[in-house]
C-alpha cells in the first residue's frame, strides 16, 4: 500500500493530463469558443490564470508526491522521529511573498483586460435591446418596438447593448460564446453587451435558479446579416410573435399542442380565445388545485395578446365538443 500511494497519485495525475490534452480544442478545458470581443478577452484572462495556477498546482502536487515517495517510512518504526524542524522564517516569508506577487500579476492582468470585457468599443453605435427574464422565457425588445421571445436576432459585427430586467424572480442572462452572465433582478436594471463576430446561432441558458422550469429556460442569439436583421425586426418579428409566444411561453407547461403536461390541457379551453379572460390570466397568473401559473404575460401589450389569440385560433384551439364559439 505504501508503495502504491505515489504511483497511484502519479497515475491519476497523468491520466488527468492525458484526458485533458485529448479533450483539448475545447472539450471543456476552457470556456467555449468566444465569438464576441468581451468573451475573447475573458478567455485571455482565463489563460493567464491557467498559466499561473498550473505552475502552483504542479509545484505543490509534485512536491507532495515527491515527499510522499522520498520520506515514506520504509519500515522505520513509529518511534523514529524525523528532524525536529520547527520552522524557517526566511522560507516562510518567501512562500508568503511569492503568492502575493503572483496574485498581483493576476490582478493586474484582470484589470488590464477589464475595460475590453466590461465596456463596449467606444466608437460603436450600439443597438439597444431590452432583455426581460420571465418564468420561463426571455423576451427581447428591439429599438423599433418589435419583440421576440427566446431568440434574439442581431446583425453580425454590431455592438448590441443589453438592458437586462425581470419582473418575477431573479434570472441570469448567459450566452457563453458571447460573454459572461448578468443577473436579471426584479427592481433593478443591469447592463451588458456583446458583438457577434460571425454569423450563427449561439445558445445559452438561464443561469440563476428561477423555479421548476429553470432548466428549460434556454435563450439563443441568432447573428445574421444587416439586411436579414432589418427584415426580421421590420416585419417578421411582428408576424410571428403569436407563434413565438405560444411555443416559447405557453408550450413549456401546456405542451406544444396545448395538450397539457406540467400544466393542464388547454387545447379546448375557451379562455384561450376570450380577450379579457386571457389578458387577466396572463397578467395575474392563476393558482389552481394543480399548482400556480405565473403571470407570464404581465408586460405584454394588446397587439401581443391579439397575436397570441390569432395563433391559437389557427393552430391550437379545438373547440369543445359541446360547441363553444371562438
Amino acid at each position, binding site marked *: 500500500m505504501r508503495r502504491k500511494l505515489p504511483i497511484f497519485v502519479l497515475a491519476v495525475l497523468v491520466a488527468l493530463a492525458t484526458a485533458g490534452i485529448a479533450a483539448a480544442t475545447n472539450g471543456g478545458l476552457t470556456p467555449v469558443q468566444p465569438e464576441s470581443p468581451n468573451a475573447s478577452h475573458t478567455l485571455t484572462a482565463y489563460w493567464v490564470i491557467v498559466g499561473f495556477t498550473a505552475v502552483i498546482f504542479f509545484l505543490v502536487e509534485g512536491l507532495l508526491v515527491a515527499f510522499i515517495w522520498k520520506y515514506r517510512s520504509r519500515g522505520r518504526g513509529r518511534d523514529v522521529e524525523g528532524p525536529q524542524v520547527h520552522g524557517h522564517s526566511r522560507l516562510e516569508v518567501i512562500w508568503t511573498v511569492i503568492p502575493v506577487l503572483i496574485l498581483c500579476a493576476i490582478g493586474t492582468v484582470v484589470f488590464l483586460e477589464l475595460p475590453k470585457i466590461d465596456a463596449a468599443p467606444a466608437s460603436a453605435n450600439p443597438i439597444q435591446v431590452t432583455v426581460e427574464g420571465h418564468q420561463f422565457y426571455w423576451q427581447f425588445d428591439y429599438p423599433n418596438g418589435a419583440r421576440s421571445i427566446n431568440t434574439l436576432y442581431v446583425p453580425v459585427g454590431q455592438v448590441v447593448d443589453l438592458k437586462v430586467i425581470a419582473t418575477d424572480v431573479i434570472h441570469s442572462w448567459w450566452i457563453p460564446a458571447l460573454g459572461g452572465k448578468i443577473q436579471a433582478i426584479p427592481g433593478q436594471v443591469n447592463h451588458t453587451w456583446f458583438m457577434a463576430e460571425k454569423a450563427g446561432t449561439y445558445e445559452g441558458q438561464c443561469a440563476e435558479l428561477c423555479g421548476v422550469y429553470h*432548466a428549460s429556460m434556454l435563450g439563443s442569439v441568432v447573428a445574421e446579416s444587416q439586411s436579414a436583421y432589418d427584415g426580421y425586426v421590420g416585419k417578421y418579428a411582428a408576424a410571428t410573435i403569436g407563434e413565438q409566444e405560444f411555443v416559447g411561453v405557453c408550450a413549456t407547461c401546456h405542451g406544444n399542442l396545448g395538450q397539457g403536461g406540467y400544466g393542464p390541457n388547454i387545447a379546448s379551453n375557451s379562455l384561450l380565445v376570450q380577450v379579457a379572460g386571457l389578458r387577466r390570466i396572463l397578467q395575474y397568473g392563476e393558482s389552481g388545485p394543480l399548482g400556480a401559473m405565473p403571470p407570464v404575460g404581465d408586460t405584454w401589450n394588446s397587439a401581443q395578446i391579439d397575436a397570441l389569440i390569432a395563433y391559437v385560433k389557427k393552430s391550437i384551439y379545438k373547440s369543445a365538443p359541446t360547441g363553444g364559439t371562438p
Partner: protein
Amino acid sequence: MTTRSEAVYPVGWKNGRVASWLVTVDHKRIGILYIGTSIFFFALAGLLAILMRAQLTTPGEHFLTKNSYNEVMTMHGTTMVFLVVVPIMAGFGNFLVPLMIGARDMAFPRLNALSYWLFLLGGIVLWLSWFSSGGAPHAGWWSYPTLSEAMPWASPGHGQDYWILAIHILTLSSVLGAINFIVTIHNMRTAGMTWMRMPLFVWAMETYSILLILAMPAISAAVTLLLLDRQAGTHFFIPGHGGSLLLYQHMFWFFGHPEVYIMVLPAFGMISEILPVFSRKPIFGYKAVAFSTLAIAFFSMLVWAHHMFTTGMGVGLDGFFMISSMVIAVPTGIKIFNWLATTWRGNLQFDSPMLFSLGFLAMFTFGGLTGIFLAAFPVDWQLNDSYFIVAHFHYVAFGGIVFALFAGLYYWWPKMFGRMLDERLAKLSFWIMFVGFNMTFLPMHMLGLLGMARRVYTYHHGGLWTVYNSISTAGGVLTAISVAIFVANIWITHGLRKGARVGNDPWLADTLEWYTTSPPPAHNFDSVPYVTSARPLRDLRRRLAEDAT
C-alpha cells in the same frame, strides 16, 4: 451485619443505557452525539446527491421530477452545510477541546447539551418539511427571494417556512455552542498551556466560534425578514413595493462566506494535528499556521460579495471584492506550504488518518486554485452559476472538509471508543473515495466551461455533456460505496467486536487527549502534566526515556 441485595450506589434511571445519553452533560458524550447525528444526516444528504446524479446521468432523464429535483437539491445543500459540516465540527470540538486543553469539561455543560438538542431539533424540523404542504423547500440553499417568497408561482407551500424555522433553531444552537467554546478555551486551559502552546485544532475552534458569533446573526436577520414577508405581509424583498432583492443577497453572503471558513478552519485544524503525528515531526511554523487561521477569519468577513459578481454591482465593488478574495489566498497558501514542509524529511506513516490528510492536501490545493478563477470577476462572469462553481466548492467542501473529517474520525476513533477501526477497510475506503470523488467532481469543471448551468434538473446536449455527466454519476456511486465501507467498518469494529483495543496513545501523538485512557473517564484526567510546549506528550515520552537510561 446486614447484606444488601441492591447496589450500594443505587442505579437511577439516569444511568440507563439509553437514558444516560439523553440526560448527559458530559462533553465527550455530547461530542459523540453530535458526530453520530451528523454522520446520519451525511448519509441522508449523500443519498440525495446520488438521486441528483442519477437524474443527470444522461440527457432528458425522468428519474426525478423537476419539482422534486429542486427539493432534493435544496435539501442536499442545506443539510450538508447546517446539519453535517458545522455540527460535526462542533462535535469534534466538544469531544476534543476540553481534552486537548486538559480541562474536565466544557465551561457550561448544560448549555452544551442544549446546543446539541437544538441541533437535533433543527434537523428534525428541516427534514419534516418533506411532509409539509407543498413539499420540501425548493429555492436552493440560499433561498433567494423572490423565489422563496410566498407568491403562488414562487414558494407558496410551508416547506420554506420549515426551512426558516430550522435555520433559526440551528443558528441559536451554533451561537450557544460558540460562546461555550470561547469561554472554555479562554478560561480552562491547564497550567502551562499558553496561547502559543495550544493545539492548532483548539486555535481553529476558537476562530470557528468567533466567526459563528459574527456571521450567524446576519442569516438570522435575513431569514426573519423573509419570514415576515411570507407571513406578516411585509415587503422587505418584494421590489414592486420598495423591497430589495440585493439586500437579501448581501445579508445571506455576509453570513455565507464566513460560513465557508466556519466549516473549513476546523478541518485545517485537524490536518494540522494529524500531519505532524504521522510525519513524526513538529508542525512546520506553528505561529504561521495559528496566525494564518486568524488572518483567514478576518478576511473572510470582507469577501462576501464575490458571490454576487453577476448582480451588476459595478466594477468598483467588484474590484474591491476581487482583491480581498485574492488576499485570503495568501494565508491559505501559507498553510498549504507549511503542511508540505511538515512532511519534508519526515518518517511518513501511511495509516488511514495520514492517507486522508494527504488526500485533503492534494484536493484542497486544487479547489483553492480554481477559486482564483472565480475571484477574478470578469472570468467569474463566465464561470459563476455554472457547474464549474459546483466543482470548485465540492473540491473544497468534499475534497477538503470531508476528507479531513474522515482523517479526524479514523485518528480520534480509538480515543472516543477505545477500539481501532480496521485499517485495511479504512485504506480501501480511502482509495475508492479518492478515485470516486475525482471522477464525480473533476468532469464538472468541464461541464461548467461547456456551458452547463448549475441547478438544472436536466439538459438536452449529447456528446461530451453526456460523457462527463455519466463519469460523474459513476464517481458518485463509487463515493457512496466508500462511505458504505466506512459504516461497515464501524459495525465490524463494534458490532462484531473485531476492533483491537488500544491503550492511551496508539499513534504516539503529541497532545493531551492522548494522556488519558481510551475512552477517557467521565472526569477526563486524574492529573494533568504541567505543559511546557505545544507537544506535552512528546515531552513526557522523552522524559520517560531519559529517566530509563
